[in-house]
C-alpha cells in the first residue's frame, strides 16, 4: 500500500513530474497489485480454459460415454475412431470449401467498403457505423432471419420472390443439397455479419498511410485509381491484410452457429468440424472420449496451419521487413 506522503504529493504535483519520481518500497505493492488485477482473469483462464483443455486431453484416452469421469482406459482408440470417421474427415473438407469462399469474399468486401468510406467527405461516421452495425447482431439471430424470411422455400420468401421475377420456380435453398444453394445462404449471412468489423480494421490502416506517398507517386506520374491502389495502397496494407486473413481463417475454422441453425446436424453435408464434434460429444451418442480426441486433433491442425501461414505471409515479422 502507498504511504500518506505519496498521497500528499499526488495532490499537489502535476501528473507528468510525479511519474518520473523514483518510488521506493513499492516493489512488493506492485507485485500485490499485479496479482490483484490479473488474478480474477487468471483464475477464470485456468478454470475455463486450461482445466477443460487438460480434461479434454485426458478424456480422449478413455471410453467416456454418458460420463465425463470415465475409468476405462482405451489408449488411442478414440483417435483411431475419429480419423477413420468419414463425418469428421469430411468436415475438414467442408471447412476448406467454406474458407475458400468466405476468406477472399470478406477480404475483398471489407477492403472495398473501407476504400469507399475512406474517400467519403460527407457522412463518413454515419456510413462507418451503418456498415459496422451488423457485427453487433448475433449469429443465431441472423441465421434464423436468413432461414425463415430471406431464404425460405415458399413463394413469399425474399430470395424466391426475386428469382420469381425471372420466371424461376421456388427453390429449396437449404433442404435440397443439389444444387448446393446452401453455400450461398451460409456465405452471405457471414459476409453480412463480419464484413463491417474487418472494414474498420482496413479503415484504420488506410488512415495510417502517409499522404506524402500518394503525393510522391503523383509527381512520379502514377495515375490515380488502379495504379496508385496497386502499388501504394495495397502494399501499405500488407500487415493488416495478413492479420485479417489470419483472423478470417480462424473464424472460419470455428464456424458453428450459422451452420448449426441453417443446415442442422440432421444433414450429412455442410457439417463443420465443430458441428461434428458437438454431435459426437454432446449429441445423441454422448461420446465424450471420441469428441475430445477430435478436439485435440483439430487443435493440433489449427496450430500447424497458423504457423505455416505465419511462415508464408510473414505475420508477426512486422511491417519493416515486408
Amino acid at each position, binding site marked *: *500500500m*502507498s504511504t500518506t506522503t*505519496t*498521497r500528499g*504529493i*499526488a*495532490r499537489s*504535483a502535476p*501528473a507528468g513530474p*510525479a*511519474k518520473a519520481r523514483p*518510488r521506493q518500497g*513499492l516493489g512488493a*505493492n506492485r507485485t500485490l*497489485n499485479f496479482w*490483484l488485477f490479473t488474478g480474477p482473469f487468471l483464475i477464470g483462464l485456468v478454470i475455463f480454459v486450461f482445466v477443460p483443455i487438460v480434461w479434454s486431453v485426458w478424456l480422449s484416452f478413455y471410453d467416456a*460415454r*454418458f*460420463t*465425463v469421469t470415465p475409468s476405462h482406459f482405451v489408449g488411442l482408440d478414440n483417435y483411431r475412431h475419429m480419423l477413420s470417421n468419414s463425418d469428421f474427415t469430411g468436415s475438414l473438407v467442408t471447412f476448406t470449401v467454406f474458407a475458400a469462399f468466405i476468406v477472399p469474399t470478406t477480404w475483398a468486401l471489407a477492403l472495398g467498403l473501407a476504400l469507399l468510406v475512406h474517400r467519403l467527405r460527407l457522412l463518413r461516421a454515419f456510413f462507418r457505423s451503418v456498415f459496422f452495425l451488423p457485427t453487433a447482431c448475433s449469429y443465431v439471430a441472423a441465421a434464423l432471419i436468413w*432461414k*425463415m*424470411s430471406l*431464404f*425460405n*422455400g*415458399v*413463394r413469399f*420468401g425474399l430470395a424466391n420472390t426475386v428469382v420469381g421475377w425471372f420466371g424461376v*420456380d421456388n427453390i*429449396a*435453398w*437449404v*433442404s*435440397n*443439397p*443439389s444444387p448446393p444453394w446452401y453455400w450461398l445462404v451460409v456465405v452471405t449471412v457471414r459476409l453480412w455479419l463480419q464484413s463491417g468489423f474487418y472494414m474498420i480494421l482496413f479503415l484504420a490502416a488506410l488512415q495510417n498511410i502517409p499522404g506524402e506517398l500518394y503525393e510522391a507517386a503523383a509527381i512520379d506520374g502514377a495515375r490515380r485509381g488502379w495504379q496508385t491502389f496497386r502499388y501504394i495502397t495495397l502494399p501499405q496494407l500488407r500487415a493488416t491484410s495478413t492479420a485479417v486473413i489470419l483472423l478470417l481463417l480462424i473464424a472460419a475454422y470455428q464456424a458453428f452457429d450459422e451452420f448449426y441453425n441453417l443446415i*442442422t*446436424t*440432421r*444433414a*450429412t*453435408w455442410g457439417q463443420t468440424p465443430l458441428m461434428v464434434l458437438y*454431435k459426437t460429444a*454432446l*449429441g*445423441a*451418442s*454422448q461420446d465424450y472420449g471420441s469428441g475430445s480426441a477430435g478436439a485435440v486433433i483439430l487443435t493440433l491442425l489449427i496450430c500447424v496451419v497458423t504457423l505455416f501461414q505465419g511462415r508464408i505471409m510473414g505475420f508477426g515479422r512486422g511491417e519493416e521487413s515486408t
Partner: protein
Amino acid sequence: MSAQSNSHWDRRTLLRAAAGLAVAAPLAACGSNNGRGGGGSGKQLQQYFHAYGEAGVEQAVKRYAKAYSKAGVSTQWITGADYETKLFAALLTQQAPDVFEFHPQIQLVKSGQVADLTDIIEPVKDDFNPADIASHSYDGKIYGVRMIDDPQFLFYRKSMLQKANVAVPTTLEELIEAAAKLTTPKVKGLFLGNDLHAVEAPLIWSAGAETLTAKNEIGYHTDGVVEGLRQLRKLFTSGSLLLDAPADFWDPSAISQGLCAIQFCGMWAMPVMQQALGDDLGVLPFPKVGSKGRPSVYNGGWSMFVNAKGGDVDAAKEYVKWLWIDQKQYQEDFATSYGFHIPPRTSIAARADKLKSGLPAEGVKLFNTYGHFDNIGWTQAMWSAWDSVIADCVRKGGDPEAALDKADRTVGRELKKLFG
C-alpha cells in the same frame, strides 16, 4: 492520472471492496437459487420441459408445480429444436434437473441416469395403456411415467382433394401422385417437414419392417424399406413437396396457412387446425409402402423421468407420483385443454369428452388401429443414424442400400455397446 493517485485510489477501493465482500459473502450463500435445496424453505426440485407449441402449456406446467406443497418446484422451459442435447449435457452436471420429460430410451437406463419408478407405477399399472407400460419397461422394471400419447399422421384439406379430383391415398405411390395433382403455383401438394425426419419410423413400419426386431437386432434393412426410400426420393425431386417452410412439421401453420394440401403433423395441433380450417380437414395414416406394407401411425408422446443421480431422488419420485399418478384433473387438463393428446390412463381417456367425437375421435381410431409405440432399445444415436439415411439417399440422391449399410454400422456399434 498519476501513478500515485492511482495507488491512493486502489487503497480506498480495496477497503471498500473488502467490506463489500464481507457483507456479500453470507448473502450470496443463502441467495443461491440453483434449484438444489439450501433455501431454508423445504426441498427444492427442478424440472425440464421442452417448449410445447400450444398456447398455455407453459403456464399450466408452472401452475401444477406451484400447487405442490411438499417441495418448491422450478421449471426450465427449454426452447429450440435440440431439447435432447441440452438435457443430455445437463444430466452430467451438478445443475441437472431432478425430474425431466423425455422418451423411453435404453441408454438412459444403462448409464444409470434414470431412476426405477416401478414402486410408484405398480399400484396403478392396470390403468395405463399396456403398450405405454411395455415401452417404458426393461428387465421387469418401469422407468418412466407416460404423461401423454401423441399420434402422428397426415392431415389433408378435403376441399382441395375434391377440387383436384383426388381420392384419399392408400399407398405411398398414390400419395406421391396425389401430391403432384394437388400442386398449384401457390400450393404444394404435401409437407412432411423440412428435413423429413418425422416420417423415418412411419416409413419403416409402413414398409412392413421394424426398427429393431424382438431380439434387438436391426429390423429396418429390408427390400420394402429400400423401395420406400426410392419412392421418397422421387417425391423429394418432384417439385410437389413443400420444403424450407418457415415452420417445421410439428407446427400446423403450413396447412392452416394454405401452403400445402396435405401435412404430416401430430394430433396436438388439431385444435389450431380446426380453428383455422373448420370441417375442411381429414386425417389418414402414413400409407403402406409396397405390397407387403401396412399403414402406420407413430404413437409418440412424452414421459416423466426421475434423474437417478439427482440431489433428492425420493422427493423427486414423490413429486412425479403426486402430479402424474395422483392428480388426475391436472393430467386431463394437460392432455386435452391445450393441444390434443391421448391420455395414457384408461380412466382419464374414458372421460375425455373432447376426443370422443368428430375429427379427434378419428385420430384416436388411427392411434388404436395403426399405432406403433416407441421401442426402448431404439436410442437417440439410432434416430440420428436414420437422419443420415434420409439425408444421404432421399435429400442427396445417394444409393439407399449404401445409406442403410452406413446406418447398420452405427446402429450395430450402438447395439453391441448396449446389449453386448
